[in-house]
């Protein structure tokens, strides 16, 4: 019997934590999706009601929450590619650890490209006095 975890992807270290993060981000995105489907459905009921609800998406607190949502989506999407590669690529399991850090790095770079622009839009909205 091996004394420490060997030959398994999902026990300990990046293999396990990426699995945990994939679940947490997936769960969060799912609940946002429920809300987002319902708020978008308002366009069919009343333009004014839709505008009023979507205005809350432009407030500072929700604006920051959107940054979190984008982080969750970036990680979930890129880690999903990593999972597919582990499943279908011959060397996927061998490189799963390297791929995890590539996922983190690419997500970070994409986030850096997005965040300043989004924060700027939120700040402009506050300055315009709603």
């Amino acid at each position, binding site marked *: 019997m091996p004394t420490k975890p060997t030959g398994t992807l999902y026990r300990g270290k990046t293999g396990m934590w990426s699995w945990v993060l994939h679940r947490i981000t997936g769960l969060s*995105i*799912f609940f946002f999706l429920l809300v987002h489907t*319902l708020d978008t459905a308002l366009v069919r009921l009343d*333009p004014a009601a839709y505008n009023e609800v979507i205005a809350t998406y432009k407030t500072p607190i929700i*604006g920051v929450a959107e940054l979190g949502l984008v982080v969750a*989506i970036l990680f979930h*999407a890129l880690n999903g590619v990593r999972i*597919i590669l582990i499943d279908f690529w011959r060397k996927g399991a061998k490189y799963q650890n390297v791929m995890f850090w590539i996922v983190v790095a690419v997500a970070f770079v994409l986030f850096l490209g997005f965040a300043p622009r989004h924060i700027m*839009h939120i700040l402009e909205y506050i300055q315009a006095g709603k």
Partner: protein
Amino acid sequence: MVTIETPRSPRNRKSANREKWAWLFMRASGVVLIVLIFGHLFINLFTGDGIKAIDFAFVAGKWANPFWQVWDTLMLWLALIHGTNGMRTLVNDYAEREGWRKSLNFSLWTICILLIVLGTLVTTTFDPCPDTSVVSALPQFCSK
């Protein structure tokens, strides 16, 4: 609880196949969703004035083009089924009482179907210039 069969137990072909297709769907839909959602975020949150510009007119402008109608409808279907199936995985893992597990999964798929029907009706019957008589028929306190 989801029971794990012993290695020698006969294979339940029907449920095994269903799990295989669910597994495959998660990967296939995931790849398509990356394109759909990254495109959605890029157009709605990155280009132009981002979140600041989003209102009824923005959505109406987008859905004037069948391309975005199809894009958003496909995104709705795939995201909800992908998300609900992911939630089913969590429920199967963590809901220990059988009755609780079954009712959670039943609720999840009910919500999924309702939202797909609602969302599809919205994207396919959308009217950019709704009857103003309906809006003006609202009580005065609504119009501020």
